[in-house]
C-alpha cells in the first residue's frame, strides 16, 4: 500500500449482543458473544478516544440492546469527549425518563428506535416479545427531550404490505426520519430466508408506496430512506460504502470488523482492540486491507465500469452463497453465480414455497441473553 487509506467517518459500536427481543432477521452473528466477554467501560472509552483520533465523527451505539449496558452513559461521555456524535440504536425496551435524561446529560445526540410492524400485535410477534407499548412510550420521551428521532424498520414478507401504516406510525410519533431497510440474508436472516423472503409483487407495491409518500412529505416531512432489496434488483449493493473505506464495527468482545456481518467470513482473522491500536487495525490489518480498493477484484468486476460505485458488492453475501468471499456478489446480474439468486426470486424458489405453506418456522436467537445460542447449558 503506497498511500494511507482515507480516514473512517463512522464507528458502529455493538456494545452487547444481549437483547430482550429476538427478531428472526437479527444482524448479530449466529455465535453471540456472552456478557462476560464484553469490553469493559474503560476499554470502550479507549475505543472512543482512539476512534476520534483516527477521524471518526459519528457513532451508532448499538447491540443487541445497548440499554442493557449499565455504563452506557459513561460510554456516551467518552464518545462526546472524543468529538464523536452519538446516536443510540435501541428497541426502546428499558428507555424510561430517568435513563434518557442520564444519557442526554452525557451528551447523547440522537435516537433511532426499531419497530417491527405498525400493528402492535404484529410488531410484538415479529420481535418475539411484547414491546410495542414500550416503543411508543420511548418515542414520546425522546420527542419530549427534543432529540432527533428516527424509526428503523426491517422489511420482509410479513410487514412489506404495511409500509403505508409504518409511515403513518412515524408521522403519528413525530419522527424526523424513517429507515425502511429490506432484510439482508446472512446470519439469522439467511437461516430464516424461507420465511422472510418477500415476493416481487410485494416489493413493487411497497416501493410505489414509498414513492407516493416521498412526494407527499417533501420537503418538510420526515426523510424516507429505502434500503434496496439487492436480491430483486439484479444490482449489487455498495456494501458499507466500500470495504474498509468509510466505517468500522467493533463487536461486544472488541473484535474490529469492516462490516458487522464480516464475522461470518471463515479466514478473515479479524483483529481485536484489546491487542492493537485502532489506527493499525484500520491501516494495516489484513482483515481491513484484504478487500479494500479494487486490486483484489476478480472478473467480471475487475474490468467493470461500476466497480468504483458498488465495490463488487457484499463479501459476506458472496461467501454465504458461493463459499468464496472474493467472488462477484451473486446479487449482480453480471455475476456468474447470479442464477443462485434468480432461482430464489423468480417464483420457483423459497419465496413461493413459503407463500403457499405460510407456516415456515422462524428460528430465533434466545431472548434476553447472549451466548446462549448453540451453547445450551452455558448461560452467562
Amino acid at each position: 500500500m503506497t498511500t494511507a487509506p482515507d480516514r473512517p467517518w463512522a464507528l458502529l459500536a455493538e456494545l452487547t449482543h444481549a437483547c430482550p427481543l429476538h427478531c428472526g432477521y437479527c444482524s448479530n452473528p449466529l455465535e453471540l458473544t456472552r456478557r462476560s466477554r464484553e469490553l469493559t467501560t474503560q476499554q470502550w472509552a479507549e475505543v472512543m478516544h482512539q476512534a476520534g483520533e483516527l477521524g471518526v465523527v459519528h457513532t451508532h451505539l448499538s447491540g443487541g440492546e445497548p440499554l442493557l449496558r449499565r455504563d452506557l452513559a459513561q460510554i456516551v461521555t467518552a464518545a462526546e469527549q472524543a468529538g464523536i456524535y452519538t446516536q443510540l440504536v435501541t428497541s426502546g425496551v428499558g428507555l424510561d425518563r430517568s435513563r434518557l435524561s442520564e444519557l442526554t446529560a452525557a451528551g447523547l445526540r440522537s435516537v433511532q428506535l426499531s419497530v417491527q410492524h405498525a400493528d402492535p400485535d404484529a410488531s410484538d410477534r415479529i420481535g418475539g416479545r411484547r414491546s410495542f407499548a414500550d416503543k411508543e412510550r420511548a418515542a414520546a420521551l425522546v420527542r419530549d427531550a427534543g432529540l432527533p428521532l428516527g424509526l428503523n424498520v426491517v422489511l420482509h414478507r410479513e410487514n412489506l404490505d404495511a409500509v403505508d401504516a409504518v409511515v403513518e406510525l412515524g408521522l403519528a410519533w413525530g419522527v424526523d426520519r424513517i429507515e425502511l431497510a429490506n432484510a439482508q440474508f446472512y446470519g439469522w436472516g439467511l437461516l430464516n430466508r424461507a420465511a422472510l423472503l418477500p415476493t416481487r409483487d410485494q416489493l413493487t407495491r411497497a416501493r410505489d408506496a414509498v414513492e407516493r409518500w416521498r412526494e407527499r412529505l417533501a420537503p418538510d416531512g420526515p426523510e424516507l430512506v429505502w434500503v434496496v432489496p439487492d436480491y430483486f434488483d439484479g444490482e449489487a449493493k455498495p456494501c458499507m460504502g466500500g470495504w474498509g473505506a468509510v466505517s468500522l464495527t467493533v463487536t461486544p468482545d472488541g473484535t474490529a470488523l469492516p462490516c458487522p456481518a464480516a464475522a461470518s467470513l471463515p479466514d478473515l482473522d479479524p483483529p481485536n482492540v484489546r491487542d492493537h491500536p485502532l489506527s493499525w487495525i484500520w491501516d494495516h490489518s489484513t482483515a481491513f486491507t484484504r478487500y479494500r480498493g479494487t486490486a483484489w477484484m476478480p472478473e467480471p468486476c475487475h474490468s467493470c465500469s461500476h466497480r468504483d460505485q458498488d465495490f463488487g458488492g457484499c463479501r459476506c453475501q458472496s461467501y454465504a452463497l458461493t463459499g468464496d468471499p472474493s467472488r462477484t456478489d451473486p446479487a449482480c446480474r453480471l455475476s456468474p453465480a447470479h442464477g443462485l439468486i434468480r432461482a430464489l426470486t423468480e417464483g420457483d424458489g423459497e419465496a413461493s414455497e413459503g407463500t403457499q405453506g405460510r407456516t415456515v418456522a422462524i428460528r430465533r436467537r434466545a431472548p434476553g441473553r447472549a451466548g446462549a445460542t448453540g451453547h445450551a447449558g452455558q448461560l452467562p
Partner: protein
Amino acid sequence: MSVAAMADWRPVPAPAVVMRHDRARGTDLLLLPERVVVLKGAAGAIVGLCDGTRSVGDIVGELADRFPGAPVAGDVPAFLDQLRTEGWLR
C-alpha cells in the same frame, strides 16, 4: 426572506446540529443524525460566527473586515439562508 428580516436574524445551529473542527482531515464539519456536512473554504468561518448573538449584519461586517474585497454582502446572507432551508441553522 426580506432583506430587512434577514438583517435582524441571529442565526444559530439547529439543536440537532453540532459544528466542529476535524483535525484528522483539516476541515470544519456539521454533524447531524446520519449525515456529515463538510464546510469547504470560508464556509466554516461563516458558520462559526453563527452563535445566536450576532445578527446577519454583524456577521457580514466581521467577514468584510477579515476578507477585504470578498463579495460578502451578497454571498453570505444567501449562503446562510440556504443553510436555514436545509434546517441546519435557525
